[in-house]
């Protein structure tokens, strides 16, 4: 496995947007907004990784970079050792389903946060799931209904759902359809953006069990974006915690959550609801605007243990142990 290039590799990826803000009508000032800054991430084949962060942490931009929907302004983003832009360009167009080099589109499947919005309301479930099969020519037209039935069964849906339209399905069912559609293209990587948020706990638990089972039995690489540490710890072996465009801590989920090294990771962990624990003393303030970042560590303003050097030096993500990395000048004892 070590000889194989990782599925995704990000090296010091930076994504800056130019934004303008009014500064006294009609003058506009242009700012640089770094949505991602110095992001390093390695996703090995067959692993499961959770990307955790609050709103404004850059999760969505990172997702867009990984899917090749946006180009990083600096740094390298690679898929199986090739730059993502090249991988995408090589794999464009239908009929590249048979595997081989240029199959980025088929190999990377996405489950969107708003599953209902991601599915065409005028198509039946059968057509929705058959679309990737037909597009990538994964099976003959005659085999499509059987393959769809198999996918519905795999995702725990009754067979008669195939004839229905998305509006007739419940929130839990619609997520299962989105998962079935993602699996239809026979992917190597499943990228899920908040795939279980906004659901009832029992439905959420059913879906988490399904995703975990699929990931293990099909050997999928799972990249799961979530704000919920409980979900991350249930589903993923690895975790990367983001704050304001940077990964502040990464490592094996169990170890990181048992003893977080970054003060933000610790605060996030303390804020997660736990039975009968008193509600944690909250972090002061809110995530600052990425347009005017403070000098030094971007968490220093809310950090309880910030020292003078934290306000001057911006810490990079550095190794703490072979498996763990943290971006903090004074990491907590682990």
């Amino acid at each position, binding site marked *: 496995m070590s000889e194989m290039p990782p599925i995704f590799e990000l090296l010091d990826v930076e994504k800056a947007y130019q934004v303008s803000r009014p500064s006294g009508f009609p003058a506009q000032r242009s700012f640089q907004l770094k949505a991602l800054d110095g992001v390093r991430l390695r996703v090995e084949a067959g692993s499961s990784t959770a990307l955790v962060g*609050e*709103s404004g942490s850059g999760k969505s931009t990172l997702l867009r970079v990984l899917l090749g929907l946006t180009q990083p302004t600096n740094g390298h983003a690679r898929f199986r050792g090739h730059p993502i832009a090249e991988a995408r360009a090589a794999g464009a167009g239908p009929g590249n389903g048979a595997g081989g080099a240029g199959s980025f589109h088929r190999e990377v499947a996405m489950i969107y946060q708003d599953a209902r919005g991601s599915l065409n309301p005028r198509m039946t479930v059968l057509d929705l799931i058959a679309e990737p099969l037909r597009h990538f020519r994964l099976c003959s037209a005659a085999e499509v209904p059987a393959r769809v039935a198999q996918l519905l069964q795999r995702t725990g849906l009754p067979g008669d759902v195939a004839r229905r339209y998305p509006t007739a399905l*419940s929130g*839990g069912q619609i997520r299962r359809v989105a998962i079935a559609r993602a699996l239809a293209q026979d992917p190597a990587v499943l990228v899920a953006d908040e795939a279980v948020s906004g659901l*009832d*706990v*029992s*439905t*959420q*638990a*059913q879906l*988490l*069990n399904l995703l975990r089972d699929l990931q293990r039995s099909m050997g999928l690489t799972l990249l799961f974006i979530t*704000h*919920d*540490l*409980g*979900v991350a*710890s*249930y589903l993923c072996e690895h975790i990367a915690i983001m704050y304001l465009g940077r990964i502040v801590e990464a490592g094996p989920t*169990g170890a990181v*959550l*048992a003893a977080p090294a970054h003060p933000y990771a610790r*605060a*996030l*962990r*303390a*804020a*997660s*609801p*736990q*039975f*009968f*624990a*008193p*509600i*944690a*003393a*909250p*972090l002061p303030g*809110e995530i600052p605007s990425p347009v005017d970042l403070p000098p030094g560590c971007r968490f220093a303003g809310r950090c309880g243990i910030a020292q003078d050097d934290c306000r001057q030096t911006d810490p990079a993500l550095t190794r703490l142990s072979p498996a763990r990395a943290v971006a903090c000048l004074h990491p907590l004892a682990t």
Partner: protein
Amino acid sequence: MTAVLSPAPTDQQPAADTADPLLEVCGLTLHRGTRKIIDDVSLSLGRGETLALVGESGAGKTTIAVALMGLLRRHEARIEGSARFDDMPDLLALREREWTRLRGRRLAMVFQDASAALNPCFTVGSQLMSVLRRKLGLSRAAARTRAIALLDDVGINDAAARLSAYPHELSGGMQQRVMVAIALSCNPELLFADEPTSALDVTIQAQIMRLILDQTRARGASCIFVLHDLALASQSCDRIVVLYAGQVMETGPSETVLTRPLHPYTKLLKFCVLEIGTRELTPPAGGVPSFDAMPQGCRFSTRCPNALPRCASDKPPLLQVEGRMLACWNPQ
């Protein structure tokens, strides 16, 4: 910081007075057409107590809160039962004119989605001050002073300047703080908080929950939370009501109910809660049946692992069992 507004804080936090409850709901039943959305819900709330209504969607948590705030129109639903509130014999029998005097003053609500509940066309200050002027009859200047103090109470920095901000200029957490300030502006005796943090990040969630609990406690008010997160309910509420499809399954002190749940539904709900380090989840199969297909008896009987033949036909009564009230024919 709270000195201006809060009633003089007593030295000792008065223990929740259960002998003379603030709110006593008896047999609340709500029909929409042929559907019985809420089926015979009774609950009581002591003074200074916090209560959580928990359950999955369709359990009727929000509907109960909305009905008790008098926000359901007569033609929308047929309501039966009674709700005694302090000296008012029955909230559910009030006319709209009587409600206008009560709502916002003695009962107030924090809604789930602050960005939808605040009016985007008016500044935070004007929305806050209009409540103060209308409900308490304050002058413009007095309302302004009080509005600043209220924003200060809910932890908004530079409150005087924020009065002229429009809701869209504030973050989600700040909008929810403004909602809390508006709800608390007339020192209500009872505050409803309908999923006040479900749209917020976890660190902000902790801030807002602490804020609501601290502020209601400082004012001696009671609070009813609508929550779906059992762990959060255990952290914030004295008592808990577990609802399923409009029926009360189990209710009692949160600690008793959640450490040793007796109802199969409470147990299943508890086993679905993800905490950090949870290894296995065992969710009940299937979903809530539609209201047209509800069984006559216990509505959970279609998914219940302990169901007996009689469960589907006879509704179990809510009885006192081991320190809590339980509605189940076959608890384990």
